[in-house]
């Protein structure tokens, strides 16, 4: 049967083009792959190759013709034994079979819930549980050790995690217990080892990747986002990367611009990632255990200054904290202070001082930034009618910006004042002690913001 040769689309956006030149004439023998014409678009001239073989039966569009629509028949190809009359008799051009209708509006991600948001107030551990005092550093180590004991596919890799016992001593003792097969010192090669770890997760393992600090994870961010976070979606759910990327995030002290950045808002933007940023030792432990078990890639943002802080941690066989559940550290009635990670230190200090002035602040620790527990925040703001957010990261496109926008959309009528975002200053971190202090968010700034939203 005669085949029609259609005007090809040579780029994703091409709709029509000029048939600049025919390189064959009627009666020529055509082989598959042979260049038969030159097509011009506004961008380039391209060669058009034959797909099928046969004899050129009829040229339907003369060379030099402009504005030839994609998919319009431009020639007829005859099979062995056919004559030109078949060309003339050949069927009219089939319309493009590509589905053309615009798809109906996509379903909304979150239909507006008419139900009032409610905070999940279930306690993280049963009342009466025995507690012990631990540093955040020890809690993180215990979380890894416990999960490694229960799942032999869990392993830790990173710079200095094994023999050196961790640049910040988080992995202290793990090499002794688990050996060098599972506690692996890597070369200084963030991009590479983030990729290797992600590949091993595709292959069925559950890696924990320690970045000495998240500043260095910028070299690896392509693997984290393009490979680890997106593969589940791109594979239609066939395979993903169950793994944890963890390490110190945010400003330490006096280490300058390249070593002092909070990446919370960066990673919180990425669908496919989960993001945790604990403040206390119990949250560090409970969330890290959940992160290691999670079948998705988790960004786990720790803080060098918090590593040595002590908190009460429940003594339980298997203590975990779920993602997406904020913690109300302090109940209050006049204002809601929302924070996470080291920002909680300023939030809690501010709340103490504000209480002395007779202002009752409710302090919420988000704990995870993806997913975020919006309900707890909204329920609180509906009660206090005022909100201040606190974080150490840059102010533009911050987590606070996002929380503010959510409150505006979901609880606008409850607000008695605009939400204020306390954040790090919009500057690279300076080295000088006085300037560094100025660049970071401070307790005084939080107090000032609360006074502003409460009109005191």
């Amino acid at each position, binding site marked *: 049967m005669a085949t029609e040769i*259609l*005007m*090809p*689309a*040579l780029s*994703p956006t*091409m709709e029509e083009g000029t048939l600049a030149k025919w390189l064959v004439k009627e009666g020529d023998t055509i082989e598959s*792959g042979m*260049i038969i014409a030159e097509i011009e678009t506004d961008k*380039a*001239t*391209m*060669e058009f*190759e034959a*797909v099928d073989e046969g004899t050129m039966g009829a040229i339907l569009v003369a060379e030099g013709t402009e504005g030839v629509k*994609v*998919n319009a028949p431009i020639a007829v190809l005859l099979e062995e034994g056919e004559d030109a009359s078949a060309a003339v008799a050949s069927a009219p051009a089939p319309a*493009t*079979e*590509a589905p053309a209708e615009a*798809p*109906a509006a996509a*379903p909304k*991600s979150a239909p507006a819930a008419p139900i009032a948001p409610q905070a999940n107030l279930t306690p993280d551990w049963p009342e009466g549980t025995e507690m012990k005092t631990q540093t955040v550093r020890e809690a993180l180590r215990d979380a890894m050790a416990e999960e490694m004991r229960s799942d032999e596919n869990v*392993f830790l890799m990173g710079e200095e995690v094994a023999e050196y016992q961790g640049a910040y001593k988080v992995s202290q003792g793990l090499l002794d217990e688990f050996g060098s*097969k599972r506690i692996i010192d*890597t*070369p200084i090669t963030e*991009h*590479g*080892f*983030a*990729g*290797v*770890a*992600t*590949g*091993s*997760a*595709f*292959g*069925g*393992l559950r890696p924990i990747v320690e970045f000495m600090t998240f500043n260095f994870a910028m070299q690896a961010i*392509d*693997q984290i986002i*393009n490979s680890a976070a997106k*593969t*589940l*979606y*791109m*594979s*239609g*759910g*066939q*395979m*993903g990367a169950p793994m944890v990327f963890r390490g110190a995030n945010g400003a330490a002290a006096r280490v300058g611009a390249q070593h002092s950045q909070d990446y919370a808002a960066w990673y919180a933007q990425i669908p*496919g990632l989960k993001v945790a940023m604990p403040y206390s030792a119990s949250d560090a432990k409970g969330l890290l255990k959940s992160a290691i*078990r*999670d*079948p998705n890639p988790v960004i786990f943002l720790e803080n060098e200054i918090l590593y040595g802080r002590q908190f009460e941690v429940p003594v339980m066989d298997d203590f975990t904290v779920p993602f997406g559940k904020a913690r109300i550290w302090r109940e209050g009635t006049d204002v809601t202070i929302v924070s996470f990670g080291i920002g909680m230190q300023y939030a809690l200090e501010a709340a103490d001082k504000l209480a002395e002035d007779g202002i009752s602040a409710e302090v919420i620790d988000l704990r995870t930034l993806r997913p975020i527990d919006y309900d707890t925040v909204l329920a609180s703001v509906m009660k206090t009618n005022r909100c201040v957010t606190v974080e150490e990261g840059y102010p533009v496109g911050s987590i606070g910006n996002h929380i503010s926008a959510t409150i505006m959309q979901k609880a606008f009528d409850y607000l008695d004042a605009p939400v204020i975002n306390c954040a790090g200053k919009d500057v690279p971190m300076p080295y000088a002690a006085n300037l560094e202090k100025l660049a970071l968010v401070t307790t005084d700034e939080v107090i000032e913001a609360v006074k502003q939203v409460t009109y005191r």
Partner: protein
Amino acid sequence: MATRKTAKKPNVSAEELLGYYRDMLLIRRFEEKAGQLYGMGLIGGFCHLYIGQEAVVVGLEAATKEGDKRITSYRDHGHMLACGMDPNGVMAELTGREGGYSKGKGGSMHMFSKEKHFYGGHGIVGAQVPLGAGLAFSDKYKGNDNVSFAYFGDGAANQGQVYETFNMAALWDLPVIFVIENNQYAMGTAQKRSTSTPDLYTRGEAFGIKGQTVDGMDVLAVKEASEKAVAHCRAGKGPYILEVKTYRYRGHSMSDPAKYRTREEVQKMRSERDPIEHIREMLLTGKHASEDELKAIDKEIKGIVIDSAEFAKASPEPALEELWTDIYAEAN
């Protein structure tokens, strides 16, 4: 078609030869059909065809066993067909339909098959290299003798993460074969314009990784090299580099003005070095198959490819709810 001398008498059965012929022809015809569907607007975006490079992946796959893993770039259709993925599922992914390997959510550059141990389909040049070493890491960790194939191009060979990976793969003796598909161009950049030294197979020397170059237009030569590399990896001797010299006949992607090389250069390759013609001739001169038998294979392949195109057109677009699925895996 000029005749080529194959150095040694091929140490393969007629049946194997016919199998390679069939696999290579399937890739060629499938890609031609994909190009056609692209021209009709049924396939969108980027679409990188494998035409000309068929012997590379078919030769390498000839040395694999169940459990071995493979990962490659966006130029991935050939790899998927060669490892046994269903042409219907591949073509339907190209058309962005429900019946595609990724339910239409991945497209030409992002396809996967857990069942066939095909780990994608990656759109970031070079990213598949550490990922491939990671696959090998997982097998070594589990203590089996599987081997992983990480395919990448001559352009990708200049990415820093490739060398980071070479170092770790050698340091940890990972069972990974780095297959550099040197088709002489990275988009419009000829290799000599991007590469300070021409021999990519020597790029592992600094890390102590053995490498060799092989004629990628000769499926038997590729198979032999693959067997050697696989034996090396399975024996626990660490990684291996194969630089496979090949050529892509078509543009880099569908929208390629092709101004960086002459028509004559392409034509010369096609007429003198075509990998499918080469094996066809071997089959005929060696009397392993008759013209009629080969015609029957041609016909069978044509049918498979037509069916895949029909399937890919008939399969519905993904349900709108699919926008919101597969973002997170549920804990089990």
